């Protein structure tokens, strides 16, 4: 057999194949079995959530669980709509996520421009300040931010859910890195033609940085859509409550039976939009999560 030049198996997962064809077949079969096992393990809990949400209450408490709901019913979803104002809650989640994402992108992109395409005294010192704030864990910020938001009268107000998150420094880092990689020729020509910083930012830098902007957008949207700790204490009233907080209230209190089909229906509503966004924008999700490293 002729040797190829590349070595795709950086480190073998299974021992080297015997030169016989049967060994090769067994190896491939084992690998595909492993791959299918992993897919099943990752997908099955979500399928079980969906299945449970489509069953009537008395059918979820069965000694032998059924994966396919029979009879199939949407009654847990109507029940869910009676317990929480579903339209309002979903709107709140979407509105807050979109507003904070747009805000964060504009503010971060402008700051990143100042840090990468402008030269001014003290630039590096100010940038170190940005670096330092990233080291503070989120839990240190929760209490004083809550006190600040409370004194501004923003508790149970959209502003609490949108504004503080717009100043996360992660976006500034990500976009600065991307802006630094752009060639200077375009903007020098544009300056000679009389363009100002705003024109260059809007017409040259932003269009050339769409991958980084998309990464930040997806990442920021996901962070806001999934957030729990912050909205739990700043948005308790139903008018501003977001999906994760509403969902967590569906669990029964002590000495009551949790209606798991309804809780799973709520989970479907909360997770479906983000899974759809993920399936359509997979590469940006991956890039965002990898570059974030440390969450919060």
């Amino acid at each position, binding site marked *: 057999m002729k040797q190829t030049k590349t*070595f795709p198996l*950086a480190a073998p997962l299974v021992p080297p194949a015997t030169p016989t064809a049967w060994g090769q077949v067994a190896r491939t079969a084992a690998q595909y079995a492993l791959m299918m096992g992993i897919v099943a393990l990752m*997908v099955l809990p979500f399928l079980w959530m969906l299945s449970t949400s489509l069953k009537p209450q008395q059918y979820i408490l069965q000694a032998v669980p059924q994966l396919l709901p029979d009879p199939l019913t949407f009654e847990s979803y109507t029940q869910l709509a009676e317990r929480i104002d579903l339209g309002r809650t979903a709107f709140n989640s979407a509105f807050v996520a979109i507003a904070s994402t747009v805000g964060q992108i504009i503010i971060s992109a*402008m700051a990143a421009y100042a840090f990468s395409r402008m030269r001014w005294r003290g630039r590096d010192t100010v940038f170190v300040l940005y670096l330092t704030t990233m080291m503070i864990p989120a839990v240190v910020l929760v*209490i004083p931010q809550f006190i*600040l938001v409370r004194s501004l009268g923003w508790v149970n107000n959209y502003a609490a859910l949108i504004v503080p998150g717009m100043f996360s420094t992660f976006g500034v880092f990500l976009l600065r890195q991307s802006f630094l990689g752009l060639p200077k020729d375009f903007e020098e020509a544009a300056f000679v033609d009389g363009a100002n910083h705003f024109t260059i930012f809007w017409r040259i830098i932003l269009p050339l940085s769409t991958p980084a902007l998309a990464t930040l957008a997806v990442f920021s949207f996901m962070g806001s859509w999934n957030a729990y700790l912050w909205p739990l204490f700043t948005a308790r009233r139903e008018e501003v409550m977001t999906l994760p907080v509403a969902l967590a209230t569906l669990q029964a209190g002590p000495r009551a039976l949790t209606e798991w089909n309804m809780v799973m229906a709520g989970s479907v509503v909360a997770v479906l939009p983000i899974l759809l966004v993920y399936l359509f924008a997979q590469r940006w999700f991956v890039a965002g999560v990898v570059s974030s490293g440390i969450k*919060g």
Partner: protein
Amino acid sequence: MVEQKGLVKWAWVAAFLGPSLIGLWVFVVLPILSSFWYAFNDWNLLSPPEFIGTDNFVELAGDDRFWTALGYTLTFIALYVPVVFVLGLALALLLNQKVRGMLVVRAASFLPVVASWVVVSLIWKWLFNPAYGLINYGLGLVGIEGPAWLFDPGTAVAAMVITSVWKDVGYIALLYLGGLQSISNTLYEAAHIDGAGRWQVARFITLPLLTPTMFFVLITLLINYFQMFEQVWLMPMRDSAADRQVEVIVTEVVRNAFSYNRMGYASAMSWVLFALIFAITLVQLRLQKRWVHYETD
């Protein structure tokens, strides 16, 4: 870059940086500084804060609930970090194989990363239901009588560790995958010409060149899991032995701040957590010289 002079230049800098810098100052820097101040005060949000020196920290040292929470945090880390560190690498090695259908595996293992902790906690709480959950049903099929899981402190920790591994393993694998794919192919070719076997390639090329990624993964895991919150807040069953008994540091901070309105005490606790994370990161940075191999060329 074209140089502009004087006021015009500074006006542009202010226009671009202003919104971000003012926001950062008001919503991040000032809160951090004031939090440090709260840590030395007694404050219930109703009456004005009262300066009490280091009393909060003295109280913390004798607070059994805090030590229990720290114990659980460390237990979680001791159980969760090694498992996800190894399984994440194994998954990355699999994902790195150029085989048809691997993209499906990658997409699937990333689904739990995208879902929120609230949804994941609730799904697994249902899976771990002692009487009607899928997990105990599966255990029953092989003749094992499943435990009460989230009702009992010991098994609740195990259940939460399993849930956390499931949620994070795809994320960790992706971090490793980046490291694996940055290893240059010429090294593998050279090793092959020198007659190295697969095991030797793994031991002397892949592993050493992956140590920077491993270091990053380890730091990330530790920083994130000292701050774990949602699963511990949501998963143990209410009104059971595990409820209010399995606590980690962040759930204690949150309870003190938002259930008991002890803003000063909770702030002090959050700074102790910061000091812990900081110290452990410093130790890691020191220790990295012993095992992390950086390419110098």
